[in-house]
């Protein structure tokens, strides 16, 4: 009975220390139960902002294998926990509803996108790499050995990880592809 009455704001207002009902007496059930979603996250993962090259530290909060919050990492001596608008929006980058998460395929002279299985796409790309490599192969150029193909080119963004750039350069070089470029030249 007492509990029920206590839950009634007017009762609290009339009997408590908040006669105008603007503070403690007005607290709702949701307010009493409020909790920040960083507190309820399953884990916090330390990361780095993917936008500019300042390299601000990020803390990524994960709940039920979904990212619930990304904010600045106060431990970082570079950023001291702060983020710019882009860094602050980076959860949206990950969870954007317009993000494309399936393979899309446009056939030659096609007018529509089509669906394609990931594995199929990988095999098709491998076919095309071999064919393009063969088509553009040069043993020699102006009398000098070059062992290369001019059939395959690549352009990477500068949000690639070092490890990714490394595998790319390694694989392309072994294939003989030399027109390998990056945003770093832009």
């Amino acid at each position, binding site marked *: 009975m007492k509990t029920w009455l206590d839950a009634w*704001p007017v009762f609290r207002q009339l009997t408590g220390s908040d006669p105008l009902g603007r503070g403690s007496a007005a607290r709702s059930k*949701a307010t009493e139960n*409020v*909790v920040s979603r960083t507190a309820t996250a399953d884990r916090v993962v330390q990361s780095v902002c993917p936008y500019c090259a300042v390299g601000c530290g990020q803390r990524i909060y994960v709940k039920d294998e979904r990212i619930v919050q990304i904010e*600045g990492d106060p431990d970082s001596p570079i950023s001291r926990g702060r983020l*710019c*608008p*882009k860094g*602050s929006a980076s959860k949206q980058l990950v969870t954007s*509803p317009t993000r494309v998460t399936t393979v899309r395929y446009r056939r030659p002279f096609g007018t529509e996108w089509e669906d394609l299985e990931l594995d199929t796409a990988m095999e098709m790309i491998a076919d095309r790499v071999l064919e393009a490599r063969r088509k553009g192969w040069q043993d020699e150029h102006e009398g000098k050995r070059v062992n290369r193909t001019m059939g395959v080119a690549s352009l990477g963004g500068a949000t690639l990880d070092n490890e990714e750039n490394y595998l790319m350069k390694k694989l392309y070089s072994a294939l003989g592809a030399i027109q390998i470029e990056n945003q770093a030249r832009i």
Partner: protein
Amino acid sequence: MTSISSASPAFTGRDPDNRLFGPLPDVQGEAGYDDDHPARVGFFTDTSVCIGCKACEVACKEWNLLPMDDSHGARDVIGLSGMSYDNTGQLGANSWRHVAFIEQSRTVDLPMPAVGLPGATRQDSGPSAANATGDSLAHAQQSSVLNAEALSEFDPQTGQTGADKQIRWLMSSDVCKHCTHAGCLDVCPTGALFRTEFGTVVVQGDICNGCGYCVPSCPYGVINQRKDDGRVFKCTLCYDRLTDGLQPACATACPTQSIQFGNLDELQARADARLATLKEQGVETARLYGRDENDGVGGNGAFFLLLDEPEVYGLPPDPIVTTRDLPAMWRAAAAGAAMIVGVALSAVLGSRRPR
């Protein structure tokens, strides 16, 4: 019989019994919290170091999961405002932080470069150069977005530009002021708005019924209704984060510490020191806004250091809590009502007088 006049202390805000006005040393205690409640917290927004990056706007939206202003999401139909870099416009139900951009300029008398014709007027390289007379230039300047007349002297701190024209670009992140006397809170009939144990003012979404009384009651025009929802929304000073010992999202993100969060008394001391430093450096136009507990709202939980008049930033120069005169009005109304009752009673009683 109570006499009511405009000279009444109740209408000048000097009524010592008026709990809706004037300095209030313990807002939480006033709102019924025990003596061991946490210290009152707030924001000190130092606009002299704001770089207008809008991290506060985004961090706020990310944390509070606010909709895009034009929330349909496919394309932004609002488009460019044409008002400097401000495309948010104002605080609202979906924008709890808003960075204002104010462009100001003034001409200074720098000598002409040593080479070239002394005193030569500007010559444009374009085809219609000859038309660029002084008058048309003045006209052009008037039609530019800044056109904010310099309301005061420029500060050495921000006014320098190395040429014959000085430009100043003021930026300021506005937010709910979390007033000591909050009109929104005073008028809320449902108890949806409440004073937290931190001294902040928060809307409880599970209580608000969208009546909208609070909207006109805010002297700053902060609180607003969300169109597709009906309820009102505004800055909560990240109440949920505070309960977890975190700082509000905007202050956490702010790269230059323009937005500082902390205990209000500490922030006030810091702001006073910052103001003194700026004054020392000759920034005569610097001032604190919302710092004075004797102002019309009893001082703000979120206050500012400005470099120009408040109006320049779109802030009311002399805000007064809309409920300041409520007690006096109630008393007047009560007196009137008593009089009516008295008259009626005496009429009745009188009528019952034996003949």
